[in-house]
């Protein structure tokens, strides 16, 4: 029971890692291999801001969101749009190059030490529920993940912007004939994905630590959640993250050295048994 609850709470964090990835793939078939590194970058940005400004972490997080949107919008508009196309190679190489630049840039600025964002009393408080102690911060992260998934699903399904996302996702040329500027729509999608990345980065830095070399592992978790859940479905991503969190928690319980390994294996097993994921919406 305890393992299950802890797994779900861990899954909440993984869900936040994965939503940005899910959105970017859903709208423009772009695989962002720097996803994890951007999460780490956001975490370090929050830590640096906390050191300079001495604000409450919540305000720092709120101030970071519009910055993240602008960064994502700009990155897509002026860099990544140039790498999109039928061939996945250019966008893969460019985002992989960005990952290396971010990792080494952070290493140069902050050294290799893991750091964390001081969340005050929030970090240690917990409540007893159903025979197990639930940390307030992990529960809050889970609630934010749930809210973010619901919000993204609403945005995608019920708003004008969401309709534009779906239109360019289905057929870019036709959408452009109908008057949409695909390049701008893509930039909006990446902007929103970066807001989610910033949320994930701040919460990761609060809950545990971030270090410059963490990025690739976070990318793999995000990717596994997306694939297990099925492409193009945000609730699928949520479910995939939960399954991954629970699996890892069970693995950690068995042997600390095998937790992540077991998570990878379950991912590969899902891939073999059900390659389209648990709840697929769009086709690759």
């Amino acid at each position, binding site marked *: 029971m305890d393992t299950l609850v802890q797994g779900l709470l861990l899954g909440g964090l993984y869900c936040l890692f994965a939503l940005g990835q899910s959105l970017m*793939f859903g709208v423009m*078939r*772009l*695989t962002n*291999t720097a996803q994890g590194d951007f999460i780490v970058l956001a975490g370090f940005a929050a830590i640096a801001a906390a050191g300079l400004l001495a604000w409450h972490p919540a305000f720092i997080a709120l101030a970071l969101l519009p910055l993240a949107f602008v960064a994502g919008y700009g990155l897509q508009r002026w*860099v990544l749009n*140039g*790498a999109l196309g039928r061939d*996945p*190679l*250019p*966008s*893969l*190489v*460019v985002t*992989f*190059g*960005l*990952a*290396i*630049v971010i*990792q*080494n*840039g952070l*290493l*140069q600025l902050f050294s290799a030490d893991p750091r964390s964002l001081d969340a005050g009393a929030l970090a240690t408080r917990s409540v007893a529920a159903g025979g197990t102690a639930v940390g307030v911060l992990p529960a809050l992260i889970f609630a934010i993940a749930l809210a973010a998934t619901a919000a993204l699903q609403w945005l995608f399904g019920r708003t004008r912007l969401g309709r534009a996302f779906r239109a360019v996702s289905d057929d870019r040329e036709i959408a452009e004939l109908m008057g949409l500027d695909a390049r701008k729509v893509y930039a909006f999608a990446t902007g929103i994905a970066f807001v989610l990345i910033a949320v994930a980065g701040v919460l990761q830095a609060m809950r545990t630590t971030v270090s410059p070399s963490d990025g*690739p592992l976070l*990318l*793999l978790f995000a*990717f*596994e959640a997306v*694939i297990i859940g099925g492409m193009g479905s945000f609730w699928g991503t949520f479910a995939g993250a939960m399954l991954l969190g629970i699996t890892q928690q069970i693995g950690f319980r068995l042997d600390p*050295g*095998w937790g*992540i*390994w077991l998570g*990878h*294996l379950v*991912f*590969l097993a899902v*891939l*073999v048994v059900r*390659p389209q994921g648990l709840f697929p919406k769009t086709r*690759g």
Partner: protein
Amino acid sequence: MAIDVLHVPTGSANLPHASDEPQVLRSTPLAQAALAGSVALVGIAATLPLWGESSWMREFVEIACYFVFASMWNLLAGYGGMVSIGQQAFFGIGGYAMLALANFAGVNPFLAIALAAMAAAVIAVPVSWVAFRLSGGYFAIGSWVIAEVFRLGIANVSAVGGGSGTSLTALRGIAKATREGVTYWVALAAVVACIALVYAFLRSKQGLALLAIRDNETAAESQGIAVRRMKLAVYVVAAFGTALAGALYFVGNLRISPDAAFSVNWTAFAIFMVMIGGIGRIEGPIVGALVFWALNKFFSDYGTWYLLGIGLLAIVATLFFRQGLAGWAQQRWGWELFPTRRVLKP
């Protein structure tokens, strides 16, 4: 055979003469000169252990491993259309299989290099069943997950030292000069074989099929090309070559650890070399490896700044210089040292 129908003689006067047949050019004088030059260069290089310094040989072995890895990545991504960020899986498997064969089974380490590469090729078949479930960008990251599974798996095997790794003790009895000389010759042979095999393969009928798949998978399949089998063949060959590089590297290095053997940096450097040199060209990884060697020699002391610069260069090359140095040379001066195209004689 369909062509012959066009040449059915309608009268003796316009019987087609042999010289009227379209002739296909498959080589150029420059390419023949390059081939002769390469043979001479290899001949001189083979004598290096007799007059060179041992640091040169070590340096060559290292860059040879980088080159073979990059060349296999080029085959996979540039010709097979399979962009992978997980080729370090086979590099590590090659290294560990060589070590296991040499340390535990008593096989000669140099023979173990070839056996380890074959083992990796065999392992690549079941791995492909999983990896081929994904395509495009997701294939890239999926193969990375597979590499991590191997890394974490081996890190938990205490017989090979677990996470901290182990040493290649099988070479203990061999004199240093002999060991370095033989390692160097194996590396030289690996480089020559790698270029020759890729060249011969791409000039063959199968190579033509591979190029067709790269350009348009659906169209190639409709022309009767067995796309899946072809891709599997390329994947297995790339695994073989990459594992060969891995086994060779750790024979030269004498020490192996999961983090070194399965490091994603191997693939990162391969991508850099191929993108700078020119993807989808045999010359690409050769030029890329030379550039990488030069950069490494002069700038690697700068550590993080050096790696940051490598990442930036790869981004800029991909966005604005996609043909790479070899492609640029071909466009600018018509240089093509290893022609794989079939050109109709005008």
